[in-house]
């Protein structure tokens, strides 16, 4: 046996020479995958035109209107504390977002919401339940997450939604029925997205002006939020607008179990 065989200097040097440098892409790939660095890229098709989406291995971090890249990177760093580097949006993610924007709620889009409060995440998770083509007031979210008095805080949380359009904060409107503010470029964008989803913001606000908050069906004696899909095929002669849940209750109507209307707190 040659157990005492010693390696020669030449052999040692030759073997040590086989050490190589890692590809320059390795570090950023690892950091992105574990969520310590983000990538961002452009998505061309959306109801609001081109978007910038930022993501990492944890999930989608932010959605913004496409604009100046340097300004986006700076905002991103301030908001997350992480560097974002430009990249192509992976096909799978781009397809998932396209399907979600199309109204498909079954498509799974992981979100990276680290650094946001539990309350904010509760609000956003609840907003995800509102179907395309429908809206709910802030007070509904507050009631549904068990914080009925936190209506203003719900509004603030929706204003801080880092992933608008994916989390449809545009489907949450003022408790008086008016469309209200929108973080992604202002109220006219909110109207544009709702119109794209098949709603008529002007008609909704006219109804709000008349004080109509809820809509009952005279044949079923069920009262809904006006955009609830269960009332979509209601005959015109059965429509009974109500100013409040109390008024509907007095008229013998029960709240819809699908859209769960609540007494408007504010």
């Amino acid at each position: 046996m040659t157990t005492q065989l010693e390696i020669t200097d030449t052999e040692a040097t030759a073997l040590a020479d086989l050490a190589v440098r890692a590809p320059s892409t390795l570090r950023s790939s690892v950091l992105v995958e574990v969520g310590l660095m983000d990538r961002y890229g452009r998505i061309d098709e959306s109801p609001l035109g081109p978007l910038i989406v930022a993501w990492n291995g944890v999930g989608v971090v932010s959605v913004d209107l496409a604009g100046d890249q340097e300004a986006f990177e700076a905002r991103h760093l301030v908001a997350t504390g992480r560097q974002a580097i430009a990249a192509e949006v992976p096909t799978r993610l781009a397809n998932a977002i396209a399907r979600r924007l199309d109204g498909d709620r079954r498509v799974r889009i992981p979100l990276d919401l680290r650094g946001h409060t539990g309350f904010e995440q509760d609000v956003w998770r609840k907003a995800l339940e509102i179907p395309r083509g429908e809206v709910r007031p802030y007070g509904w979210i507050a009631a549904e997450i068990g914080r009925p008095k936190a209506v203003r805080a719900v509004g603030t949380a929706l204003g801080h939604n880092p992933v608008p359009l994916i989390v449809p904060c545009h489907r949450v409107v003022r408790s008086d029925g008016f469309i209200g503010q929108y973080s992604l470029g202002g109220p006219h964008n909110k109207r544009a997205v709702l119109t794209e989803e098949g709603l008529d913001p002007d008609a909704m606000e006219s109804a709000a002006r008349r004080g109509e908050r809820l809509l009952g069906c005279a044949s079923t004696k069920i009262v809904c939020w006006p955009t609830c899909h269960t009332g979509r095929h209601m005959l015109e002669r059965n429509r009974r607008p109500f100013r409040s849940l109390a008024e509907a209750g007095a008229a013998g109507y029960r709240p819809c179990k699908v859209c769960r209307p609540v007494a408007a707190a504010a």
Partner: protein
Amino acid sequence: MGSGAFRHSRRAAGVPWTRATEAARTRFYPVMDADDRLIADLADDLDAAFERLVIAHQDRLYTIALRMLGDPGDAEEAAQDALVRAYRALASYDRARIAELRLRPWLSTIVLNRCRTVGARRATRGPKPVSIDGDANRPITEPEAPEAATPTAVAERHAERDRWAVRLAALPTAYRTAIVLRHVDGLTYPEAAEALGRPEGTVKAQVHRGIALLRTMLEAETRPEPEEMTA
């Protein structure tokens, strides 16, 4: 960045490589020096310190993966997986467990496991030929600005490295693994034994047998073609 420059400054200063293993060991000297501090920082704030772990260990993990798998793409995948798994493991460990870690053997174990997975998948898809390094892999020992190196000298050096890479790839896996850890990566025998979960004596024997086989290959390459028999 520092490791290659460090070794070159020694070589430039005319310091001879006396001990055989010194060549590999010295290359990662700054890594070893920094690991204790890195461990303490990882235990304190994983997210803040993890990028330093990546920077300090990515070259060695990629090197191990490349020499085990042969293909640069597979090697990058295995090295990336290994570092991601290391992060997730660290995130699940408490401070005491992180403090006890020895990064070099621990990370080596992880990357070797990933190499087995990536290698097994490669085997089912059909093997790729052992890739020669070409320009894709920049040797760690290459000078940043080679003044004296003529193109032919550089080409010859690359060709020599490729020949060694091919010889190494031809070794049985157990021998190759031991030699990669000990002589390419430069782990000590105790570290290599820890990384492989084998007794030190076993690792030594595997290295020695591997070296013996490499010599046999070298001899076979240099043996002159037999003269034609004349009668």
